[in-house]
Each structure stands twice: as structure tokens, then as C-alpha cells.
């Protein structure tokens, strides 16, 4: 009988625990979404994370919606100060602690971001609106991740070149053209800047006939980002040509590596 009682007690505690944690979950869900926020992430949750860390004085940078290094260190400092495991991840318990300790007014912060100011989140009134998240979520982060060592303007310039050179090619073919530019950057036989490689006289037909100044689409830009992030479909090619239009006999003499779409890639 006694044994049974303790079992019952345990069950009751267990149930309570579940109920409690469920309730707890509900609480956090009201502010952040359910995701574990990790370094490199972008979006609304990151804006909220940065704003809350800023409110508490850990984050001193600009609220921009990109989980970068300064956000990472701010979060770790927060975790260490509040006696939590320091992992630099904003998971369930960290988010709950943050919500508990800070205030966040989504609309004020976003209005400030929209007006290009660095929003200081002083949380006028502490009311949270989950509905506002839906209506406002078309707002893009004001800053973006870029592959190491390249600026957004570099990416744009490369996207222009890739689009002008190979807009009719499949995606892999476009990554390949971008990869040739990247391979040329690290070769001693070519200039060592993006602009130097692209505008080298005679290097690209799209530059010579002005097609480089067409407006590139998103696909070309994605191809460039893939190439800069380390995808090289060409097998380290430095040249490519279209066998139907190539006039130079010299280019035919280069060792050919492979063909992607209409282009033959060679060394």
C-alpha cells in the first residue's frame, strides 16, 4: 500500500512537470519562435535576440537581423552571467531567461530599422503582439551574410559577369563560370581581384560586348555565392569556351577537363 502511494505521488509529480514545461513552452512561444537560434542565422528571431541582448547591455552592435560574431559573444556573456551552459546557442531555456529578463517591443524596433536608424530597444510598453509578427514578417534583415573575404558589391559584379556570360546555362553551368573567376583569383597568371579578373581585356566576351551590364537575376547571384563558398564544378579550370562560337585556335589547344551545358572547361 505504501509503495503504491509513492508511485502515485511520483506520477503526479511527473504529470505536473509535464504540465509545467508545456506551460513554459507556451510562454516562450509567445515571443521567439520555437527554433534554436544559431550563429549565422538571419531573420526576425535574430532581431529579437539582438534587441533583448541590447536591452540587457550585452550587445553593443547594430540590430541588423544577422547572427554574427558580436551577437555570439553577447549571447555567451549573457549565458555565463546567468549561470547557464555557455554554448552560444539560443535554445529553449536561454530564450526563456531572455524573455524573463528583458523587454522587447517588436513594432518600435522594426519601425526604427525601417527608417534606417539603429534601434535602441527601450521597450516603451511591454506588450507583445504575436499577430504583428505575421504582418510584419515580410521585412528583410537589413544586413546579409557574405562569403569570407568578399563584399556584396563583389558578389554583384560577379553576378553581372556570370549572367552576361551564361544566362542560358543550367545552374551548375553558372556556378562553373563563377568558379572559373574564383580559380583565376588564386592563379598567379591572372589579376588577384574580382574586378581585375572580370575586366581583364579580352577575358570575357560579355565584358567586351557590354552584356555584363544586363541586370542579373537571383539565380546568377546564388551561383556566385555557391562558387565563393567553395563549390567548383569545373575541376580547377581556368578557361572555358563555347565550341560553337570560339574563334581562337589557341583556346582549342588547352587541355580540356569537362563539358557543362554549352561550355567546355579547360586549363
Amino acid at each position, binding site marked *: 500500500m505504501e509503495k503504491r502511494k509513492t508511485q502515485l505521488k511520483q506520477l503526479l509529480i511527473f504529470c505536473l512537470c509535464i504540465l509545467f514545461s508545456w506551460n513554459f513552452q507556451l510562454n516562450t512561444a509567445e515571443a521567439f519562435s520555437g527554433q534554436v537560434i544559431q550563429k549565422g542565422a538571419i531573420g526576425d528571431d535574430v532581431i529579437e535576440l539582438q534587441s533583448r541582448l541590447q536591452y540587457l547591455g550585452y550587445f553593443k552592435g547594430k540590430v541588423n537581423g544577422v547572427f554574427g560574431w558580436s551577437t555570439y559573444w553577447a549571447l555567451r556573456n549573457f549565458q555565463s552571467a546567468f549561470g547557464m551552459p555557455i554554448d552560444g546557442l539560443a535554445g529553449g531555456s536561454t530564450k526563456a531567461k531572455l524573455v524573463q529578463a528583458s523587454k522587447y517591443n517588436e513594432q518600435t524596433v522594426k519601425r526604427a530599422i525601417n527608417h534606417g536608424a539603429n534601434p535602441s530597444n527601450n521597450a516603451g510598453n511591454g506588450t507583445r503582439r504575436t499577430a504583428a509578427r505575421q504582418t510584419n514578417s515580410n521585412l*528583410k534583415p537589413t*544586413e*546579409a551574410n557574405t562569403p*569570407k573575404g568578399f563584399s556584396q558589391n563583389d558578389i554583384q559584379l560577379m553576378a553581372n559577369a556570370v549572367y552576361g556570360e551564361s544566362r542560358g546555362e*543550367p545552374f551548375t553551368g553558372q556556378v562553373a563560370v563563377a568558379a572559373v573567376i574564383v580559380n583565376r583569383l588564386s592563379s598567379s597568371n591572372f589579376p588577384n581581384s574580382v574586378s581585375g579578373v572580370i575586366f581583364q581585356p*579580352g577575358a570575357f566576351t560579355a565584358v567586351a560586348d557590354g552584356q555584363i551590364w544586363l541586370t542579373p537575376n537571383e539565380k546568377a547571384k546564388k551561383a556566385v555565392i555557391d562558387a565563393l563558398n567553395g563549390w*567548383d*564544378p569545373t575541376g580547377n579550370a581556368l578557361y572555358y569556351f563555347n565550341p560553337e562560337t570560339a*574563334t581562337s585556335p589557341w583556346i582549342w589547344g588547352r587541355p580540356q577537363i569537362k*563539358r557543362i551545358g554549352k561550355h567546355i572547361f579547360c586549363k
Partner: protein
Amino acid sequence: MLRGILIVFLAIAATGVGYWGYQEHKEKNAILLNAENNYQRAFHDLSYQMDLLHDKIGTTLAMNSRQSLSPALTEVWRITSQAHGDVGQLPLTLLPFNKTEDFLANVGNFSYKTAIRDLDKKPLTKNEYESLRKLYTKSGDIQNELRKVQYLVLKNNLRWMDVELALASGKESTDNKIIDGFKTVEKTASGYDEKDLGPTFSNLQIKDENFKNVKGKKISENEAAAIAKKYMKFDGNSKLKVTENGKGSDYGFYSVSLKNKRSGEEGSMDITKKGGYPIWFINSREVTKENISLNEAGTKAAAFLSENGFKNMDMFESNQYDHIGVFNFVTAQNQIRIYPESLKIKVAMDNGNIIGFSAEDYLKSHHERKLPSPVLSKVDARKKVNPHLKIMEERLSVILNDLNQEVLCYELLGTLGEDTYRIFINAQTGIEEDVEKYKNAESVYQDVL
């Protein structure tokens, strides 16, 4: 009457058209001249830099003390980089000019490496003097040839625009004095053997292009197809094409392209012939939604790796681009990160599928390593770092240094103001091998007016 008006009208029209044509002609000539002048500047500057280079290498030969030698070698390095820049502005892309550029690059590498060395402790060796002497003769030859071309250009008013036209139309064999001159320069530059110049040169060349560390038996086309399907998770409905590598490749590989008509997915993949390892694949599918977090995507990437037999991988970078997560993994051998062995994975954040994979670096450098135990302690390493830096994280890792050698380092992550730095202190010698400043996220300028 009517005839009179017509005549006057036509006369005015004719003068108008004539004037307009003349203006157009003038403008065209101005633009052509402008382009020509740009080429001329680059060309004459190039030959000037080669003059300087020859002289500077010559002076280093006569120098003995560190105080004068180091700055002179730095000067040589600067001049080679200028000359390299000039070459890049000339329309030589379709002309074989690699040997001359290799020569410039080699002189640059050699002078850089010797200039930064402590020449008091390690003076130039006999071999290095011999190398310098050879570079001196070679640069003299190249200088001479370039001067000849320069003389011809000035004497006959040769135009670079003609070179460009000749090259663009594929008629470089036609009698063009500049093209012929540059071909001679190239021949002169290729007359030297890099091996003559000692081991210092070969170090900086990119090593192992051939996946020599990859083991296993040669696979067939059918096996390659099966491997591609397995990695990219394409089902039986997909159309598939396997092609072999071209003759110019350094290593053997199969290219597999897949197309799934039902889902509209298209994929391409390269697989090594030896052992059937995946070099890279791309699944070009539009990702327009975001259902999972970057963190979950990272878990998927790690699961994909262990599923496919990549052991002890450590994620060290994660980035989100629109709705795609890009992850960077390295091998960790006893918690020591081996940075040369890196591989990248792209995860679609709508359904968590792996839509991209690149293991070229990993396959090229993956092998069993015997890592030395560090001579320096953690505390010693910390002392080597700039005292203003606040150190946040530290670990041991292996990187490739400036000389392309693998070195065991203490990797220290720290902050200075709002910036984050990564510093590598050699665990044997205490040398600061590399300091890297991490870039902060950059503003999106689309709304800038």
C-alpha cells in the same frame, strides 16, 4: 517655286547629315584613342617596371647587410606586383603569356619570403644567391625583349587596338609585330627551369592536384550512377547521364547528371574514379520557404556526414543565405581541428534535404596524421597574443601556413572593440602564423538612393 524649296531643304538636310556623321566619327575616334592610350600606358609602364626589376635584383646581389637587403627585396616584391597588374590590363588573355607571369610570380614569392626572414639569423644561402643571380639574368633577357617591342611600337606607331582585334578574330598568326614580340618574350621567360631555382620555389606552388590520398579500386560508370543516386537521394524515376572526365584533367572522375521529371529537380555530381568518392554535388532546386531552423539544418548536415562514413567531423561555420543553410565542417583528430580537411554542405531549409556538397579540399588532404604534442603551453600561447585582445575561446588546430606547410597551432578567438579576430600561434615555435579579422555582416544597400 516648289523645286526651289525642295532643293534648299535637301541641301540643309545633306549638310545636317554630314555634320552629324562628322561628329559621330570624331566621337568614335576619341573613344578609340582613349582605349588605345590606356593600353599604351599599361604597356610602357610594364616595360618600365621590368627595367626597375632588373636593376633592383641587380642591387640586391651586391648587398650584404640585412638593413639594406630586406628593404631592397621588399622593393623587388612590390615591383613584381605592379608589373603583374600591368600585364592584367593588356589584351593578352588569348595569347600564351603564362610563363612570363609565372616568372613574375616566382620572383615575387622568392623576394617576399626572403624579405620577411630575419636575415641576421638566417642570411641568404649560397643556393639562394645562385637563384638571385639566375633571376637577374632572366629578368635582363625579358627586359631586353620588351625593350625591343617597345622600340618597334614607338618607331612604327603600332596600335594595341590592332592586337586586340587580331586576337579577338582569331588571326593572331597574322603579321603583327606586337604579338610576335610578346611571343618572343614568352619564349625567353620559358627558357628557365623552376627546379634550378631551388626548393624555395616549389613550396608555394599548389600541391597535390591528384587526390593521391584517396584509396580504393576503380569504379565503373554504373557504380558511379548508383553512388550519385545514393548521395543525392534521387529515386528510380530520374533520368541519368554519366560522362567521363576530359583528357586535360589531372585526375579521373565521372560526371553524373540527374533529372527528375516529376519533382523538377536537377542535379550534377562529380565522383572520383578511384574509390568512388563524392567530389561535389549540386541539386539545383528552388528553395522558397523556410520550415526548419538553421540549427536543425545543421543537425541534418551532420547526420548526412555520419551516414556516409565521414567520421569525426566538427562544424565550425554556419551561415544562412535566404532559405539555404551553408555549413563548413573540418575533421577533428583528438579534438584538434584539421583545417585543410574541410568540406561544405548546403541544406534546403524547407524540407531539410542536402542540396549541395563539396569535399574537394577534404579528399585532397585527408590522411592519417601523426600530430606532434605542443611544446608551448596554453598560457605561453596566450602571452604571445597582442595584450589588447580579449581572448574568448581557444583550442588546438592544424592549418596551412604561408609556406604551405601544415603546422600545429593554438587557435585563439578574441575580440578587440567590436571586432572578432582569429589568431594562430604555432604550438612548437610560438610564431604568430596567422591573424584573421572576421568580417562583420554588411549592410544591404538596396534602399540606398
